[in-house]
């Protein structure tokens, strides 16, 4: 029933603009999702693919916007500890690097 309702609802699918910043401990993806907030955003990881969906209060020719985008993750991402937050129409995903992918400095004696 729920799936059926979802199908009947018309959305205008939009690819949100993204910035990805790499740092030593994690990678941060920030996406522009104006009109969406924590209540309307879903983020899931399946088979190393991260998919975000955000329903927006904005419309296009009467159809509500649905921001949707997927990212292929490498196994260097610690999938268990991905965190997400929304603020002022920006969805920020923090992807910590797994222990293996971090830079290990070896002391030379």
């Amino acid at each position, binding site marked *: 029933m729920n799936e059926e309702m979802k199908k009947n609802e018309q959305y205008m699918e939009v690819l949100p603009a993204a910035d990805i910043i790499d740092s030593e401990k994690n990678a941060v993806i920030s996406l522009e999702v*104006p*009109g969406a907030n924590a209540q309307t955003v879903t983020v899931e990881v399946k088979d190393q693919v991260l998919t975000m969906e955000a329903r927006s209060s904005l419309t296009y020719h009467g159809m509500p916007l649905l921001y949707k985008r997927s990212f292929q993750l490498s196994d260097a991402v610690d999938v268990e500890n991905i965190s997400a937050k929304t603020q002022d129409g920006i969805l920020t995903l923090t992807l910590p690097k797994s222990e293996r992918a971090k830079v290990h400095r070896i002391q030379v004696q």
Partner: protein
Amino acid sequence: MYYAQTRHHHNVDSFHDLMKAFFRSYPEWNAMWADEGPGKGLKIKVREKDVRVTLPFPGVSAKDFDVEVMGDTLSIRANRTQDSSDENKQYLCRERSTESFQESVRLPVRVNGSATSAKYVDGVLTLLIPREDPEANGSKQIKVD
């Protein structure tokens, strides 16, 4: 490490501004120049009692907007304060706009600009500008004998 599809982004220059200005009169010809894609640009809707203006501009705060209604002209300026630590960041993908927004439009109806309400929620600026009551304006139907 991460795969991300990068999108074509035009640089803002005088040519872009020119094309944008030109295509604004013919939005059905070319949506790109007119910035009229879904979730983009200023939208103005004239309703019975007021004019509703929305501008998606994510990632700033309420104090970054300058809104002015003078007569029937609406001016909106939205500033993006540059993050000074930007230079040191290593971008794997950079698509989000860093541009500011500035636009003045002439509203198609008479409004009472001083009673405008504005709010910035979830990255969208929404203005409600009440329409002017034609009778309050001192307009009077004149009967022709």
